[in-house]
């Protein structure tokens, strides 16, 4: 059913796209390819090479074989940083996905006030991570923050000083920042669902909740996969926000892999091990992206992607 509806929705564009493709417009991809090679592939190769060297960032680069890799892989900080990264990824996914879907469905409605709210909800996305982190840090300050200001004892926790609370705050702030983005994706996807399906469901006597679970959610399957890939792979790169908010602290409670890489490289001056960490980040990111493709994989997805 899904297949049919998406496929029949736009037969003409897909055919014309085919014929344009036939005349070989491959060169259109050249600018993107040049940029990607220059700013994506080349630095990546550089980092891979650097991971087999010893370099303090300012002196000579000295090839040193596997020294950096041994140092990184035997460092107890690595499993710790991976565990923190995993927690941030999973917790923020668990928090963001339901919220984004609900908000997205809500905002997909045509009512005027929803359009107004959509603009409001969108605001966090316009702010830079650093600004968000500084703001939350000030609000959550245990001595001068919101809790003390409003004399609300439950708000004046040691939010960023207790390891568990700090991790929770990081997940919350990350979600606060990115839920608008994912809501937007879901909003778009929900609007693509043919209204005829809902009309048919209504005639069959399905209530709103039943419609949501039987039509909306299944129709959003691919969007969920896309959004989840962005969330999880993106959470590997959380750096700026955490760096400003907690600097990885207290202790190393919120020191994610990207932060560990930065600290090793730019504060410890150990560019070799930092590059090895960078390579590990890339590999984990690739594996995760592949995994998500697999989850959403199979023939069905393939053909749906073609239609969309």
């Amino acid at each position: 059913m899904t297949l049919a509806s998406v496929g029949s929705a736009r037969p003409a564009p897909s055919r014309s796209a085919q014929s344009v493709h036939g005349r070989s417009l491959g060169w259109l991809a050249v600018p993107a390819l040049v940029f990607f090679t220059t700013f994506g592939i080349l630095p990546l190769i550089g980092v891979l090479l650097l991971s087999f060297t010893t370099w303090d960032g300012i002196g000579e680069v000295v090839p040193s074989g596997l020294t950096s890799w041994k140092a990184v892989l035997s460092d107890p900080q690595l499993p710790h940083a991976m565990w923190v990264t995993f927690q941030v990824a999973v917790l923020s996914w668990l928090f963001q996905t339901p919220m984004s879907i609900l908000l997205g469905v809500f905002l997909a409605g045509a009512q005027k006030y929803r359009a107004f709210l959509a603009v409001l909800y969108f605001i966090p996305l316009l702010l830079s991570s650093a600004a968000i982190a500084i703001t939350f840090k000030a609000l959550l300050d245990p001595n001068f923050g919101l809790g003390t200001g409003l004399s609300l004892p439950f708000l004046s926790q040691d939010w960023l000083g207790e390891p568990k609370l700090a991790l929770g705050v990081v997940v919350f702030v990350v979600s606060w920042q990115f839920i608008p983005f994912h809501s937007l994706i879901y909003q778009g996807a929900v609007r693509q669902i043919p209204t005829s399906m809902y009309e048919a469901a209504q005639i069959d006597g399905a209530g709103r909740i039943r419609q949501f679970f039987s039509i909306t959610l299944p129709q959003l399957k691919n969007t969920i996969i896309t959004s989840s890939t962005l969330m999880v792979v993106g959470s590997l790169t959380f750096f700026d926000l955490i760096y400003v908010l907690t600097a990885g602290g207290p202790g190393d409670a919120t020191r994610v892999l990207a932060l560990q890489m930065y600290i090793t490289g730019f504060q410890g001056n150990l560019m070799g091990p930092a590059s090895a960490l960078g390579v590990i980040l890339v590999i984990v990111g690739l594996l995760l992206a592949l995994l998500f493709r697999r989850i959403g994989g199979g023939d069905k997805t393939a053909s749906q992607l073609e239609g969309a």
Partner: protein
Amino acid sequence: MGVPLAGALAACGSSGPSSSTASGSAGAAGSGASYWYLTGQPGEGIRKGTVDRFNAANAGTQIAQTAFQNDAYKTKIKTALGAGQAPTIIWGWGGGGLKSYVEASQVEDLTSWFGENAAVKDKLFPGSFGAATVDGKIYAMPCETVQPIVLYYNKSVFEKVGAQPPTSWDDIMALVPKFNDAGIAPFSLGGQSRWTNMMWLEFLFDRIGGPEVFQAAFDGEKDAWSNPDAITALTKMQDLIKANGFIKGFSSITADSNADQALLYTGKAAMMLHGAWTYGSMKNDGGDFVKGGHLGWMNFPPVAGGKGDPSNTVGNPGQYLSISSKATDAEKETAKKFFTTGVLDAPEVKAWIDTGSIPIVKGADSNIGTSEDAEWLKFVYGVSSNAKVFAQSWDQALPPSAAETLLDNIAKLFQLSITPEQFATNLNAVTNS
């Protein structure tokens, strides 16, 4: 594929200059030099003033200046050096950081220049040259002020609670429950910055075991951190933390935002161990706290049975200006001219004294008399000149990679997530070389 990396790199780039005040004239690009230094009043204004006066007096040789926030600068300057884009004049803390520049041949050897310009050298405190010297050669010009770490206290809070300033470590431990019962934190601390915690250990190590304990670790002696005196110091440190000696949430407070100082002058905390440079900012930000005489200060008190001389202090014996070896000859000349005629000129010396700092110029104490901060200045001058040992901050003395391990483990020690013995083991691993 490149996404995770690109994200991280872009983020690094965002820690750019917080204020860019390039005031070099475009016409004099050939002989112009560049100079990066730290933000934060009152120092930033004084640094800018010195450069502006130099630029006004030397139309042909201009210095373009850019100011960075402390922690951002530490990263930025290393990256710039590595990329060959360092400024002509490199502001720094001397010690281990300078040593790493020297080893990478990034900074000029100034030994012979100081030989030819003995007047410049003789003007300055001799003690300030220690951290500018690597393997017997001078690679930096000491500048600005001497900054011992001082134990500050809020006199009003002490009066309110009816307590006396501590004269020993036991007094400190006895004051902790007293202030906690009164709902006031005994000590303010900006623990997220980590080096703030380190100042406590520097003093405890010195007072308990003398300066030899850290010196041994610095020299790379085997198991130096497992010295019984070191373990005692680390244990006492954790005792104070366990007794709630520090303000709630200290591990999420940063020193860069001066929130730790705010805690002291708003009376939320009774005492604070911090650098002499905070006097100026507390005077700036604290209303009538400093002017009204509510700020008290002392050198860190002795620990009963300890071997360290109570006159010893730690901190920054000066700040340091190096010249990039990658600069052109004209730029280097401009920098040297700036060192001779600009740095610590009479208005700068006066400006530092006016903000409550002791510039590292001989005879600076003769300018103190009329200052409204005379009492404080005399104290700083006394502590700095009477100290048997004026030790450099550990993280500045050690090479950067060891310093990072040190700060990391200090944060965990203060978090009580490692024991003193684990701390010693972790550090022995990096300083034994």
